[in-house]
């Protein structure tokens, strides 16, 4: 695990942290459930992508790298479905999307 | 202050907090959540208090904790079933002694569970009615025509 790979991996992790922070800030700051869902799902998926990339680079064998990528794909599927279901449930309960006054 | 002592202290503190929650929380679900936190912190106490960092991790407490986790989820699952049943029968998720006087979430309990007298017509109180007229069970059963 040469130092160059370690540096690139650390940089990727930092980028991932930025995205996670953006997603969390979105959850805290946005006015209604739809915006919050939008923010957290998008930002966290991309953040996780960078994190997985960092892990793939530093993984000892191809099999483990493949497992990391599989984890990312399943996380994408489940978080997107969850976001969709929550948004649908909110809509059915009649929560009006936020409109700037 | 090795990491094992940190986790031991964290286990003791969250154990205390969970004891507070189990007693002071009014809705039974909240008591149940506190009980799960109590279980997790006792398991952490079991492993952290006996771990000796330079030595390899001891598998015996690990197996005990896995056994404990499964026992806790079984008891939690049953408690949830009882809470759902109590809400369905009495409309309140709070035990009678915790009910706030005239509070929003508390109502007077429904009919008591008397013995079904041989003489009186046995009133079908519990789920003997079965789900037929209440619609389809989300349990993956064959859809009724």
């Amino acid at each position, binding site marked *: 695990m040469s130092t160059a790979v370690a540096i690139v991996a650390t940089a990727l992790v930092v980028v991932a942290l930025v995205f996670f922070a953006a997603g969390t800030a979105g959850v805290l700051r946005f006015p209604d*459930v739809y915006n919050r869902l939008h923010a957290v799902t998008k930002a966290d998926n991309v953040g996780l992508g960078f994190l997985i990339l960092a892990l793939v680079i530093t993984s000892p064998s191809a099999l483990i790298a493949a497992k990391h990528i599989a984890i990312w794909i*399943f996380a994408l599927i489940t978080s*997107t479905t969850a976001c*969709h*279901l929550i948004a649908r449930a909110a809509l*059915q309960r009649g929560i009006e999307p936020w409109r700037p006054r | 202050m090795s*990491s094992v*002592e940190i*986790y*031991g202290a*964290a*286990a*003791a503190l*969250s*154990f*205390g*907090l*969970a*004891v*507070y*929650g*189990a*007693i*002071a*929380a009014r809705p039974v*679900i*909240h008591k149940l959540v*506190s009980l*799960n*936190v109590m279980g997790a912190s006792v398991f*952490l*106490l079991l492993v952290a*208090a*006996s771990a000796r960092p330079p030595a*390899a991790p*001891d*598998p015996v407490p690990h*197996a005990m904790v*896995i*056994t404990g*986790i*499964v026992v806790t989820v*079984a008891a939690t*699952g049953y408690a*949830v*079933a009882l809470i759902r*049943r109590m809400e369905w029968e009495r409309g309140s998720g*709070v035990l009678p002694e915790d009910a706030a006087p005239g509070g929003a979430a508390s109502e007077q309990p*429904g009919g008591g569970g008397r013995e079904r007298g041989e003489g009186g017509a046995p009133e079908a109180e*519990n*789920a003997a*009615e079965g789900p*037929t007229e*209440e619609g*389809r*069970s*989300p*349990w*993956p059963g*064959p859809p009724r025509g």
Partner: protein
Amino acid sequence: MATEVTGALLALDVVLAVSLVGCAAALVATADVFKATVLFIVFGVMMALVWGRLGAVDVALAEAAIGAGITGALLLGAQTAQPARRRGAAARGREHTFQPATPDDAPVYQPARPSRRVAAALAAAAVAGVVLLALSRVPTRHPGLAPILAPHMPDAGAENPVTVVLLSVRAYDTLLEIVVLLAAVIAAWASAVPAAPKPEPPGALLAAATRVMVPVAVLIGGYLLWRGAAAPGGAFQAGAVIAGAGILAAFAGVELPRRGGAGLIRAGLVAATLVFLGAGAYGPARGEPFLHYRGGAAEGLILVIEVVATLSIALSLVGVFMGRPPPRTPERTGGDDEFG
């Protein structure tokens, strides 16, 4: 390099410990039950990380799959809409659906009476203080049971020491634990609530995701079960993952086979108890004590017990989550022998 790493890891431990206690404090202090449940799921994930840090990878898997996953789903499931109240109460006009419209206006409960809270605080302080006192005096001499187990590992029937302890050294604990799970399902089904009126048909996206995720989850469960012999994994973690797939399938409205479905599920639920007792009787049949198996026989028996236990654990967790027995046959779904 080593000192910074241990320094950094120590910092990680402090952060994890503080966030663990912080989650527990926030969870206990909040009056909103929904918030407490979400905080508990975060607590479960934090706890899984702590188990990883303590070198207990099997326990980390179990905590993540069962502690945070299934228990979180159970607690959230407890707060969803209820079917219309029974004719008796409903007839009295108190139509009550305990349904939080959105987390914001979920019924927030007033805190308990001050006297109750003071008593709780005293009890909590006493217990925590006493445990902390004991922790400060714990000696550092005894090496635990690992050195005693090590010489027996070669003919114990599996390489992963935790699996050996779970299914051979302390197999009796695991047997009782499986009986507890079975008893929980029986008791939960005895207090069943009739089905919700009309679960809305699953959206296209949920159906598509289920078609992808359920087979993958079962595959992962099988992998965890198989790897359990040599590496962290095993029946309980695999059972929890497959139970997750089962619950997802139930949400997506997957149907049971038409006839005999309910009988099959009951057989699956009791299979682990009966097979474990049968494996236990293998020893006395050869003049050895109960639950005695070594070498080749141990490998075979441990594998059989693990496979059947995974099946029963997955069925039990889904059964407890559903909260009611599966309908027997289309014609006689309701009626008196619903439980019988």
